[in-house]
């Protein structure tokens, strides 16, 4: 297997590398990424929505300087869209061209021909293992698919090969780093979990989130950033339909920067709250629980 790209040599190297491309890994994130690269095992990343599961795959691709191949899962996703599909139209053309040319091309010849690689449309999973250069393969939201699809993945994930009935076994040209993400909406099968390393990502610790926000909005006053992270923490404590994600914290920080806010007081909060809270009923809850506790602007102006 050609693997010209340098492999990371230590956990700290991975951590530094990820940081270098703008992703601040938690302690276990760097370690599991390192193990994934070393052991060549897929990683199952679980955690609430918006903690940077997908972002991790993108950052890994940037850090390892590999292409990212992404397969977004959804209900009803099948082999034709994930693995490969025969190019019917082209096959049809080939057959017609054979007959139109008047030539009596033998049945066997045509058959061999139209089931060749030329007529195969590679879908993400196939692209990932057929690539000459190793890639990072992201299988996003695997829990959205059904169990049949999961079962189909097993061959790919453990042996990095795909069986196509007409062609036989297609082995990987390079070994991708595979990340599967799940929001844990259903229990994945034991067989799938068995083949993966497991990484649970949760909302980051206070300090880490602060660092993330500061990394993305370096111009924001540190005092405001700190306050912002505190408030987001409080909001996450509430029982909301959709708690704010890290990306939304960053969006909020940017909004505050744009508005030139000097303090997060009740007024600013009311005006910008919709950046982090996206449900009608959540807005009410947050306004009552968090907004009411903030200082009124009058106090600040004095």
């Amino acid at each position, binding site marked *: 297997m050609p693997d010209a790209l340098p492999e990371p040599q230590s*956990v700290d190297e991975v951590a530094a590398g990820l940081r270098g491309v703008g992703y601040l890994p938690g302690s276990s994130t760097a*370690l599991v990424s390192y*193990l994934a690269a070393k*052991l060549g095992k897929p990683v199952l990343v679980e955690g*609430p929505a918006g903690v940077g599961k997908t972002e991790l795959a993108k950052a890994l691709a940037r850090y390892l300087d590999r292409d990212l191949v992404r397969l977004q899962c959804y209900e009803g996703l099948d082999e034709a869209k994930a693995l490969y599909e025969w190019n019917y139209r082209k096959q049809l053309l080939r057959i017609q061209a054979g007959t139109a040319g008047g030539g009596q091309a033998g049945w066997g010849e045509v058959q061999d021909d139209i089931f060749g690689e030329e007529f195969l449309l590679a879908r993400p999973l196939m692209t990932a293992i057929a690539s000459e250069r190793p890639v990072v393969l992201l299988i996003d939201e695997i829990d959205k698919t059904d169990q049949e699809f999961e079962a189909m993945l097993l061959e790919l994930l453990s042996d990095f090969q795909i069986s196509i009935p007409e062609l036989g076994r297609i082995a990987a040209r390079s070994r991708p780093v595979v990340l599967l993400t799940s929001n*844990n909406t259903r229990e994945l099968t034991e067989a799938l979990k068995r083949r993966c390393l*497991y990484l649970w990502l949760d909302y980051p610790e206070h300090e880490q989130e602060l660092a993330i926000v500061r990394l993305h909005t370096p111009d924001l006053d540190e005092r405001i950033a700190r306050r912002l992270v505190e408030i987001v923490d409080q909001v996450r*404590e509430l*029982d909301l339909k959709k708690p704010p994600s890290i990306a939304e914290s960053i969006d909020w920080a940017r909004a505050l920067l744009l508005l030139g806010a000097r303090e997060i007081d009740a007024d600013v909060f009311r005006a910008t709250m919709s950046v982090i809270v996206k449900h009608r009923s959540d807005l009410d809850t947050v306004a009552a629980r968090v907004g009411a506790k903030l200082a009124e602007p009058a106090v600040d102006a004095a």
Partner: protein
Amino acid sequence: MAPDPTPTPRSYAPIADEDPGGFAGQLLAFGEELREEGMALGTSELLDAFAALEHVGWHRQDRFREAMASTLAKSPEDRRVFELVFERFFFRAAEAQAARERIAEAPPGTIGGSEELALDLEALRAQIARALKDGDEGALRDLARLAIAAFGRGEGSGVLGVDVQRIRRALGLRTEPQPDLPPDDPRREGVPREQLRRFEQQLRRELERGLIQRTRSLPPKRPLSELDRALPTGPAQDLAQVHRVVAQLKRRLASQGHEQRGRKRHAHVDVRRTMRASLQSGGVPIELRYRPQRPRRPEIFVLCDVSTSVTSASTFFLSVLHALHDSFRKLRSFVFIERISEVTEVFEKERDFRAASEKISQDAGVADISGYTDYGRVWTEFLAEIEDELHPRATVIVLGDARTNGRPPREEVFAAICERAGRTFWLNPEPRLYWNYGDSVISAYARFCTAFECWRTDQLEDFVRALTRPT
């Protein structure tokens, strides 16, 4: 060293002399212990763990642990069990080995008594407070040992919990702010609860280590009790856990029915989608497409016992149900002790678990004289109140321990309710073991309904699944 005054606590077992077979043996034993706690651990996972450890330095405990966890524990629940077992196992393994090889640290008594240290107590306090603020785990451990040496005074009381609290008080570590301290003292703002808990854990561990060293015997291995995984029962208990349970349930419910596709295929053919799919094969409908099955969205009446014996479990349960409100067509909740009272509104307004339970205890007015549950009367009142609204598509859920306090159970009225409603479930927050003991009359009611035992999160989940199962 002075003769050892500590008596060996009775339940401690002397350390066996044989070695469990090196590092690999220890790891396998660890895997065995995880299995005992109910984790499904295959040989392939253990092999992965060994493979992972080849690439990760072992000298850092956090790395070692993460590497093991990522290969062995494959769900948040498993991870929690893993953490608990990891602590227990490696602490015991390391201590047993140390005792076997007769490695001992300098007894704490030798430094504890010296005078220059006594003078520096104030500095030590400040140092510990600072380390707590910075969250430096290694420093905390060292400081915990210093603190034991300084404040532990001899051999301690022999009860670890008491000693830990005594040392914590001596250090002046509190969660609430202490405004009378000088402004540069890190304790002034109060120590974060989480960090204080970590420090106490370190203290406890160091104390236990000392005890093992002195007595050369291991404390009994405490299996993780089912209670470690039990439902949150007190309103003061960790709200985050409630949120976790609820969030999980919500997501599971939202995706319910999807996973059933494929297994149960007796659904109706979806003509439109079948036609579309047939285009690929030139208009011949080779593949049939089916209409997805919709999960049932039942109309629900909940009756909750809120007498003192089950109150916390039932308020928790009610708040879970209301958090799941979206999944039900209509939900009405009642609480009862001797009488019955509707509390649907309280929960619609109040999303917070604690506030809701306070409100209920104040306003519901369900206790009459004795404060003991009177099931017979409750059934009669309930039937009178909503008899007309019960219909075969309605679901009635009763949450209670079925302890009648010697009053007549009136199961014939309950049977009438069950007959009118489509389905009736009984959730008993007591473990099945205690059913029908004492004044529990659950068997009288269980004849008419489906009874669930429900005191752990997974049982609650099973129940909610049963509740929304498409029929």
